[in-house]
């Protein structure tokens, strides 16, 4: 590595297309970036003695090593390193909020290394050059594994278990594979061919996929238990957190996921029956909740041509500069997503009071109140409503994007009878549920989280299952060394 690379180059990532241009389509928003520039960006990596990035990454991506390989322009090596800890860098390279970059040591006082971009570059080069090939296992163990849910967690577990030689069947209740990757994340962030490319590979490696099969729905969960040697529950945390204010049942008030799914289907070419259609065109849109889901609603609404978009957050607006003590954690600072840049009014420290509708039960406005946030002597924050600052904003369409509460209990979980933990997620011990041969991973286990965490969970659960099935495992673990003494 060039020990002085970080002094020579500044951070640079691909430019995004102009907002007014890109809202006209659902294509990825980034422009091309030359390989040479990517190499330069990798040169900024300081190959730290304690690589906090590597710790900050939920997958344990060995970031300094792949950066060095990119610096050496050895893309095959870079790919091998990356692939060893991450089954789907093409997803995380596009949509991960990159906690690694928050943890980057250079980020203490400079813009961090463009790790996420480098990750994406590595995997795209690898596909381009044919490094990514189906690699079916040499030997089959004869064990059969079922995975319920084809989101990032389920897919990662499937890939790993298949690698270990087990025969894997993935069950997806929806008509297409990918879970949130498919119907949650918009194409302008993750074009679906990327997902399909990966699934095709996995199929070529021998993984079986069954769509439109809801375990615990159209097939009996017990049946799966009898059929398979081990089962992984990876159904996600899909029950949205509710907003219990008056008027919530008015027409035009939707959970964000319903909207996002529909948008994704439209882009995929599905025809949505008019009666079910949620369309922002010409409407005053209010997005409640400031997370990524909310942001995705904003992006879709803009593309549909909303008249106005307002996004409400009940937290106070954070400062835009991180504190030294925030590092290496993800700082709570003001950030703007690409969707915000495309147009959105953001309101902070707001509590929703009630939706008001017209005679047709169509929502027309939303009453909100500004909050006063104070901290007490222990440093604990609390808020009080400021009655003088109650107002009503126009609202033809509202999306509730304040997170997900827990997995869906009806069907699968209830039929199996798995225990839940105090947070309402599936209780486990090292990914094993209270039931023999049943494992759990992803949001269903840890509650709503990032795609990168889902992949990590899937991988670790796969290890636990392999050990369960075979007594040992050679699957790579995030923090396991093969040199560990027995």
């Amino acid at each position, binding site marked *: 590595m060039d020990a002085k690379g970080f002094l020579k180059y500044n951070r640079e990532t691909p430019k995004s297309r102009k907002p007014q241009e890109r809202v006209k389509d659902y294509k990825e928003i980034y422009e091309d970036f030359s390989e040479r520039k990517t190499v330069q960006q990798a040169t900024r990596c300081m190959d730290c003695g304690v690589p*906090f990035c590597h*710790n900050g990454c939920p997958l344990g991506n*060995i970031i300094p090593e792949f950066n060095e390989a990119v610096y050496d322009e050895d893309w095959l090596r870079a790919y091998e390193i990356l692939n060893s800890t991450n089954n789907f860098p093409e997803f995380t390279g596009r949509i991960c909020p990159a906690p690694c970059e928050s943890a980057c040591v250079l980020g203490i*006082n*400079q813009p961090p290394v463009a790790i996420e971009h480098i990750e994406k570059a590595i995997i795209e080069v690898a596909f381009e050059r044919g490094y990514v090939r189906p690699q079916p296992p040499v030997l089959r163990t004869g064990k059969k594994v079922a995975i319920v849910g084809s989101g990032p967690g389920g897919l990662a577990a499937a890939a790993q278990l298949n690698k270990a030689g087990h025969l894997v069947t993935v069950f997806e209740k929806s008509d297409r594979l990918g879970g949130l990757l498919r119907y949650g994340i918009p194409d302008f962030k993750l074009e679906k061919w990327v997902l399909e490319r990966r699934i095709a590979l996995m199929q070529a490696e021998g993984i079986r996929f069954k769509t439109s099969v809801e375990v615990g729905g159209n097939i009996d969960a017990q049946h799966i238990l009898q059929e398979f040697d081990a089962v992984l529950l990876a159904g996600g945390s899909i029950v949205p957190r509710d907003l219990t204010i008056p008027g919530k049942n008015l027409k035009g008030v939707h959970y964000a996921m319903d909207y996002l799914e529909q948008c994704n289907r439209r882009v995929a070419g599905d025809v949505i029956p008019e009666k079910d259609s949620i369309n922002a065109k010409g409407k005053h849109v209010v997005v409640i909740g400031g997370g990524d889901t909310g942001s995705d609603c904003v992006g879709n609404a803009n593309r549909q041509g909303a008249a106005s978009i307002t996004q409400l957050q009940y937290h106070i607006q954070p400062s835009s500069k991180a504190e030294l003590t925030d590092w290496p954690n993800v700082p709570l600072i003001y950030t703007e997503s690409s969707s915000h840049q495309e147009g959105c009014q953001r309101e902070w420290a707001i509590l929703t009071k009630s939706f008001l509708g017209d005679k047709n039960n169509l929502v027309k406005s939303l009453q909100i109140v500004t909050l006063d946030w104070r901290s007490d002597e222990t440093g604990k924050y609390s808020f009080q409503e400021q009655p003088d600052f109650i107002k009503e904003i126009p609202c033809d369409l509202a999306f509730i994007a304040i997170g997900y509460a827990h997995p869906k209990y009806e069907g699968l979980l209830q039929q199996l009878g798995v225990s839940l933990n105090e947070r309402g997620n599936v209780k486990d011990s090292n990914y094993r549920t209270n039931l023999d041969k049943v494992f759990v991973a992803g949001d269903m286990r840890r509650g709503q989280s990032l795609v990168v965490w889902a992949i990590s969970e899937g991988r670790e659960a796969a290890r636990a299952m392999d050990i369960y099935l075979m007594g040992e495992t050679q699957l790579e673990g995030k923090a396991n060394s093969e040199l560990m003494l027995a």
Partner: protein
Amino acid sequence: MESDQRGLYVPQLEQDSCGTGLIADLSGNKTHALVEDALTMLENMEHRGACGYEPNTGDGAGILVQTPHEFFVRECASVGFALPEYGAYGVGMVFFPAERGVREHCRVIFNDLADELGFDLLGYRPVPTSNQGLGNSAKAVEPYFEQVFVHPKNALAPESLERRLYVLRKFATHQIQDAFPQWKDQFYIASFSYKTVAYKGQLTTFQLRSYFLDLQDETFKSAVALIHSRFSTNTTPKWKLAQPLRYIAHNGEINTITGNLNWWKSKEKLLDSALFSKEELDKLKPICGEALSDSGNFDNVLEFLVLSGFSLAHALMMMIPEAWEHDEQMADYKKSFYEYHKTIMEPWDGPASLCFTDGIIAGAMLDRNGLRPSRYVLTDDDRLIIASEAGALRIDQSKVLAKGRLQPGKILIADLEKRRIIADKELKLSICKRLPYRDWLDKNRIYLSELPAPPEMKEDMEEQSLLQRQQMFGFTREDLKIFIAPLAKNGEEPLGSMGADTPLAVLSQRSQHLSNYFKQLFAQVTNPPIDPIRERSVMSLFAMLGGAGNMLDLAPERARFMHLSSPVLTNEDLAKIRHIQHPHFKSDAIDILFKPDEQKGRLHAAIQHVCAAAEDKVRNGVNILILSDRLADANLAPIPSLLAVGAVHHHLVNEGLRGRTSIVIEAGDIWEPHHFSTLVGYGASAVNPYMAYATIMDLQEKHFFESDLPIEKAISYYNKAIGKGLLKIMSKIGISTFQSYQGAQIFEALGIHKSVIKECFSGTISRIQGIGFDDIAKEVITRHQLAFPEKIIANPKLDVGGVFQWKQQGEEHLFNPQTIHLLQYSTRKNDMTAYRKYAKLINAQDEKALTLRGLLTFRKGNSIPIEEVEPIENILKRFATGAMSFGSISHEAHSTLAIAMNRIGGKSNSGEGGEDEMRYAKKENGDWERSAVKQVASGRFGVTSHYLANADELQIKMAQGAKPGEGGQLPGHKVDEWIGKVRHSTPGVGLISPPPHHDIYSIEDLAQLIFDLKNANREARVSVKLVSKAGVGIIASGVAKAHADAILISGHDGGTGASPLTSIRHAGLPWELGLAETQQTLVKNKLRDRVTVQVDGQVRTGRDLAIATLLGAEEWGIATAALVVEGCIMMRKCHLNTCPVGIATQDPELRQRFTGDVEHVINFFHFLAQDLREIMADLGYRTINEMVGKVEMLRLKTHIPHWKYKDLDLTPILYKQPAEEGVGLYKLIEQQHGIENVLDRKLIYMAEPALEQGQGISSTFDIYNTDRAVGTMLSYEISKRYGGEGLPEDTIQFRFRGSAGQSFGAFAARGLQFTLEGEANDYFGKGLSGAKLIVVPDREAQFEVSENIIIGNVALYGATSGEAYISGMAGERFAVRNSGGTAVVEGIGDHGCEYMTGGLVVILGETGKNFAAGMSGGEAFVYNASGKFEKRVNREMVDLDRMEMADYELLRTLLRNHFRYTSSKRALHLLNNWEEAKHSFVKVMPKDYKAVLQSRIVVAQSSNVLVTASM
């Protein structure tokens, strides 16, 4: 001694070192006056000896003289028996046990044996002694002295008599000690000869004369007297350890003793002598052994050789050869002698100054490095006087014919029969030409390179992939990246920084390489490490293959060996050896493999099988034994190569077969330098690291190396780097030659069970037990299963490693993302809760231990409320931050720590880079950037009188945890204007810290430096920094006896600076061991209450502090954690100047990124102190003092989970040395520094007007060698009053006459002009700080001044400014590390101007070898009329340039000064013949320095400013 074994104290590790001397009368005239003079001389070197806690119990003193025949005749008659004529009887000096009954038992045995061996007993004579004034501890074990006189029943020639006496002495001693092992230490025969007799004991030099009444008798006469005064690191009295021995008085240290003894053991079995019968040989054996000191063993072997027919000089040349390997100027007859004799004996390597006599000849010699002083004088009344110091015996200067010092590797002999001096050249000529060694060598010795090319090599390892083999042998990605690739690419060993915070090998839960359990030993205090780069000329890597039988035969067949220029064999080399077809050589291979089926005993059985096979092959004539693991595969796992080599080596040693063969190892588990060093250290002659080569080839094929390095080159780079690494590892313990390193076992095992040690590494210290054979097998099997899994897996790859860089899958680290973050967060937010989380993570070592202390826990105490514990302020005073130099870290980082420590009353440490004077004054807001601790390290950067005067503590850095035994280097790019100024060096020019302090080659030298520093600042305490290793307690005890006020024990794992990675990981030991050993040993020696003990090394939390305190430390140093608080994120790239947080960098842009804050640092120390107070309250201690050394409050955790370390035995650490009544466990008593009556008190008194009013004054004084550090205390007075500027030049003009003691003019400040008439000893003008020193010969002297030594070794070491004019010659290492002094001298010894960075040296006469090694700055003008100078310069860093006009002018001015001050005839002659003479001068110019000067001129010209290059 048995009880000692419960602790960590290992008696074999006791060290001593000493003053030695000799007086011989060439005319053979025996006089009592000579004996008297010898005793006086001994008394005048009292300061070179030592005493323990009792001032009247010395470490030992003695004298060896010719048999005083007349005296004995009279005395024996008076006790009732008559003596025959001289030469017909033998006299033995016997130490009998004091108890009468026991004594008589011994006597009966002795008498019977004397009779049996053909002697008549003439009688016993009680030796009259007077123990008045002896200390109680000496008296308690005082032996009963008797002399025994025997007469052969049949008349014998004297030489035969001597041999028979020898047999009787050895046999009787063996028999009596076997019969009464409990009196082993009490029965001893000091001498038994017809021609010499020794008087010695546990005495101070002053007691010797009065103790032995014989010595005072006028008729007690001798023409030769050998004297010795001992400075031992231990104080447990042992009378028999006093010297002289039978032939020698030894001032030195034999670093290779373990190897020498092992090789001897092997040789002993093969002995066959023309002079001793088989039965006699059996009676002599064992000829030497472990129960003796290194000197004692040396003397025993020497004695055997001499009595077996070797001349004394011949034997010495064999045992301590000169540095001949790389000496191009050495005559061939000498080279062939040495080359031939290396087949008989490996060097007994280490610093040595010897005086010796057999009663007929007497002489002295120095080892190849010449690090111990030896000065001689020849007078016109035929006396030769040799001593460690000049002037030890006062001599009428008008009688002096010649004065000199012994040069490295040289011998000087006085032959009393021939009545003349035989100088080195004549002596060696006659010895070396006695037999046709060169012919023998030419006819018999072969070179590996001459062997025919081997048959086509086919790689038959296709079945397994390279990856599988790498996995099987334990390679990781990190090993490839960090070691193999850089070694092959650059030929240099990689650097790292920030210490090692990974678990010890035995605590690691990852499969470990067996070498990781072995820690390299290193030199500190008692012997100096060597600089393997700058002093390459004394180092040798030559190895040889072959075997030979009886060592006493000087036959041509001995020369049948194969010469290897390096022990690292390429695959082709090995193939040649494997297929050798030669009448003298037979090679054969043994597979070192075992079945990895996890059955108990598999590995052990395999080892035994390998040993048996080896024995069988050697008995069948195989003289090159190849141990190979090439055939390891899925079914058979490799035995760790180190285990196999050690086992075979020791098996063959035990069978007496080792000398008949050589061991070559061909193994896959060898890639880093440490692997090589362990293999060689345990007996391998040559090493083939085939997997390292295979890996390099693979890397090359994958284009890992830039610009496509050809493979041959990559491999030769790799081999070269390994060679360098080996030299470095050898040199850190002070061993010069590969041959003596081989088998020397310079390691301490940490975590290996004694069953393994006994069989494979016998003699290695292993104090906490650990893994056995089956456990070692498990570690191999883990790797083997990784390589050959039962189940096939896609994309297998190498493990990440994670030792040098933290990795999620890698090795554990104390500092990892969580702990670093929590520590920074807590201190930045002043959040004790966050600190507690941090401490909990660090302390949580139940599941996975990282440190030895992690296995310990506290016993339950009688808790007290925390309010009763002494306040936090008291505790804060006991903190110190680590020594980090300004230069290694930025000013911001450095001064932040200093201010913080000054605010809390703790101590920050300047490090070794000097300190800017502007930091000495307090700031307006009361903050103080001054470092309380000023370090004095080997580089002596910026160590001036003023610097020393501005300190609360002066710390002598003997070693540093990250790289004990090594020097350092600050690359030129880090030396900016500021750093250059503070270090008194040229910006842009690199700086080298030598491995040793050039004024500390021994413990008495350290005592001298402590004395110097105490003179330089009476207010400051003097501390000595040591690194933990086996024997550190013994060294600490020596240091306490050398009057240090404080001792710092550093763990091996600390260290912030840049060091070779090998050193960071593999040298030194954890502080738990070193600290516990130090406490135990100091208490045992009743010295603990005289010194403060501080500890450092990965100290992180209050728990660490509490454990350290219970183990014996009352102060604690913290470096790494303090840096982390300042913002360090363990980048571990300190050596690259790219620290992204502005700490370890001088880059102005990066320095701006520094975010450290004084408050954060203070918060941290408050947390620590509070954390500690809570533990104190819990345990029930109100004060730290109460708590120090209360090791009984610690115990081993009961539920230790891991099989690997659950059987570790930490009881030696937890052993509490019982303290005798009145012996304190912490510092209570101030040391007596002996500075109350120094000459400087007089000087200061006389200088009062100058000091107070700046008046000029002058005066004269007599001076003796006992007046040491003259001018140093006076300089302190000047610096205190006048700062760095001092007084105006020549304000104080003092004149001295006589022989000045060591360190004359040390740190002498500006304003002083000292003229010494007479001579000076070592360290003249060390640290010269502006004064003018002038030396002229005594007015009565008749000798030619410019050819005689007038000042000793290591003059002007670390001088920063000032002038010196020396009318005469100086010894070795003149102006070493001079950075600003100007000196004129008329001749110098070897290694002149070494490491010089500034200043000007003018040499008007001869120079020795290796001039200007490591010289990066300054200039030297050398008179080279003889034309020999060119060959004596080490040109690595300097050019020989022509003198320019300005140079000539400067030279002429200096010559005029020289003449003006000294009336030098040489100067006058040169000035008178200036036009002619000036052309004989040559300018020595460092290349870097020249480049910097030129670039400055270019810069100046380009900016149109005219600047002349100035100093």
